[in-house]
């Protein structure tokens, strides 16, 4: 297999900061222009915060890593102005099949209901994701993206940090009030600050191959336990755009990774699986997966986001997805703190909320990885019994774990106001908003498009809406039972998904999470919850 050429190449440009006699001073410096650093930079820039974004490379596309992007991440990217190109370029899917040997054990559907703008998942090569984000970042004022700027050292102070950066023109320094480390799993910032990155390494090795072939297969996730073409191990297959397919084969703990990467060996394994050898190898790698995190994502004025803060095994597609959701959690909080609209302590809630999400992701991906590659003979017996029972007993089917796919985490957070009213369903405080189709005149609109990335009160129209003096957007929706409003819940999806009755209100945070909800939304109730959600509670 020939060395792959980079797909996208960017240019190093000298910054005036490199000629400054003393380190130039910036409000926010983001280290690392991967999917997480780029998403964060775009979000902050859209909120009027200027950022310097440093990346040690100047190209993307030498190999793919992430491919599956979840509905919640697509909703974040919608707000960042890149949702449409991502979905257009990607392949959309929501179904999966799990096989044991050659028998279908079960099928799942990740989004069986309608009324959602975004699908359960798209598959898209990570280099396309990054390239679309780079394009968006370049189109925004306020993002100073510097390629081939490698952070080699950092010294933290109580009110910021000093960075040392290597470039093709030699080193220079920068001083920042806030440094956001989005420099990935091998984070230099984390290492230089001696922050411990602890967790579990799994014994098994996995071959990950991207191949090009034309195949008439449905767009769905396929997973095999003990398939006839790869006995005693597991296999996973995913479609990507441009006739590219991702195949993931378990190799066991003792495989010789160098040998396994040899094209003739890979081709033989894949030919056995596919029943033909009409494919090209795009990219091959052998991984040993890990689940790790740092204890606190906020270390004074240095904040960790994405893989620098936490790492998961890929079963469940939780790595990139959770990193992008870290970025959206941090962006609005940092923007409020920098504009003095919230106390600096609001940043602590980023650590709390995204720490919970990381624990959740690590828990799920550890369980999946251990199910796929059991640790001991006892665990293997338990796993095999589950697979044997699954065709006969529903309970066992539910325990078959080939990866639990990424969904938005729910936060147990002091920014939420606990329910004071009785709710049987709906979206509880700490959970992400649900989409729904609404009507305006003859037009159909999605709720996720209507709500701007600011504090918003979703109000089920009653005789009068609360007259808010706080900076909260009001989105009034006429339910079938209540009085008129331009926006109508014609299909009843808002009422069903939010258990909405006339007069009730949901206060959404700028990241679309529910901060509070009221059966009878009053100015005092909503504004108290608004204060709490900004860390003033």
């Amino acid at each position, binding site marked *: 297999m020939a060395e792959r050429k980079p797909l996208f190449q960017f240019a190093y440009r000298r910054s005036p900061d490199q000629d400054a006699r003393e380190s130039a001073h910036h409000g926010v410096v983001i280290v690392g222009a991967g999917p997480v650093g780029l998403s964060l930079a775009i979000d902050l820039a859209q909120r009027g915060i200027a950022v310097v974004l440093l990346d040690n490379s100047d190209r993307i596309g030498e190999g793919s890593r992430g491919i599956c992007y979840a509905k919640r991440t697509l909703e974040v990217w919608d707000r960042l102005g890149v949702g449409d190109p991502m979905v257009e370029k990607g392949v959309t899917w929501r179904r999966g099949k799990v096989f044991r040997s050659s028998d279908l054990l079960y099928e799942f559907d990740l989004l069986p209901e309608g009324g959602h703008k975004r699908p359960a998942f798209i598959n898209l090569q990570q280099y396309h994701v990054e390239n679309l984000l780079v394009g968006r970042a370049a189109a925004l004022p306020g993002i100073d993206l510097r390629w081939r700027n490698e952070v080699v050292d950092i010294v933290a102070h109580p009110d910021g940090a000093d960075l040392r950066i290597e470039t093709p023109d030699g080193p220079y320094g920068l001083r920042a009030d806030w440094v956001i480390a989005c420099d990935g799993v091998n984070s230099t910032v984390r290492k230089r600050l001696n922050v411990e990155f602890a967790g579990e390494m799994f014994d098994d090795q996995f071959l990950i191959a991207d191949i090009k072939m034309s195949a008439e297969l449905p767009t769905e996730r396929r997973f095999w336990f003990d398939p006839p073409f790869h006995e005693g191990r597991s296999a996973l297959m995913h479609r990507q755009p441009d006739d590219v397919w991702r195949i993931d084969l378990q190799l066991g703990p003792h495989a010789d990774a160098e040998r396994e990467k040899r094209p003739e060996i890979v081709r033989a394994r894949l030919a056995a699986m596919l029943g033909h050898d009409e494919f090209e190898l795009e990219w091959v790698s052998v991984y040993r997966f890990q689940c790790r995190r740092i204890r606190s994502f906020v270390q004074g004025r240095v904040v960790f986001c994405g893989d620098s803060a936490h790492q998961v095994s890929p079963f469940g597609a939780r790595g990139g997805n959770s990193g992008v959701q870290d970025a959206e959690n941090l962006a609005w909080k940092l923007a409020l703190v920098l504009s003095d609209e919230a106390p600096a302590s609001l940043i602590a809630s980023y650590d709390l909320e995204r720490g919970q999400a990381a624990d959740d992701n690590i828990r799920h991906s550890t369980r999946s990885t251990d199910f796929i590659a059991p*640790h*001991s003979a*006892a*665990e293997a017996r*338990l796993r*095999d019994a589950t697979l044997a029972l699954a065709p006969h007993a*529903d*309970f066992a089917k539910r*325990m078959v*774990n080939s990866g639990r796919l990424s969904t938005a985490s729910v936060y147990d957070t002091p920014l939420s106001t606990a329910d004071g009213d009785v709710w049987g369903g709906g979206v509880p405080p700490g959970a992400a908003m649900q989409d729904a189709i609404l009507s305006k005149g003859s037009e159909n609109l999605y709720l996720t498009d209507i709500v701007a990335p600011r504090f918003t009160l979703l109000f089920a129209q009653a005789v009068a809406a609360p007259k808010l003096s706080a900076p909260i957007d009001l989105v009034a929706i006429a339910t079938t039972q209540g009085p008129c409003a331009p926006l109508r819940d014609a299909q009843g999806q808002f009422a069903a998904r939010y258990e909405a009755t006339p007069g009730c209100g949901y206060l959404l945070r700028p990241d679309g999470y529910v901060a509070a909800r009221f059966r009878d939304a009053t100015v005092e109730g909503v504004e108290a919850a608004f204060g709490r959600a900004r860390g003033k509670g």
Partner: protein
Amino acid sequence: MWDRAHPPRALPIGDPALRFIMRLDTSSRFSDPDAAYRLVVEAHRGLADEESRKLDAALILILANQIGDLTVLREALALSRAAVAPVKEAATS
């Protein structure tokens, strides 16, 4: 048909008609099945294989007693046998 005192040794599992006469509940009863599975996995961590087998045996007896119903236990045993050793079963019956 179904004689409670002398049930067949192996259930013809997969026959939907059996749902109506079986007492064993095979529907998913945990709100978080992964968590339940994980508890069992973790109970085995750090044990030698022989100890693991002993743990399984003890667990079976404890859970059987908790069920406290011979009919259900019989059905559970028949289902497990049919799932993991269907060939042997056919040979002996």
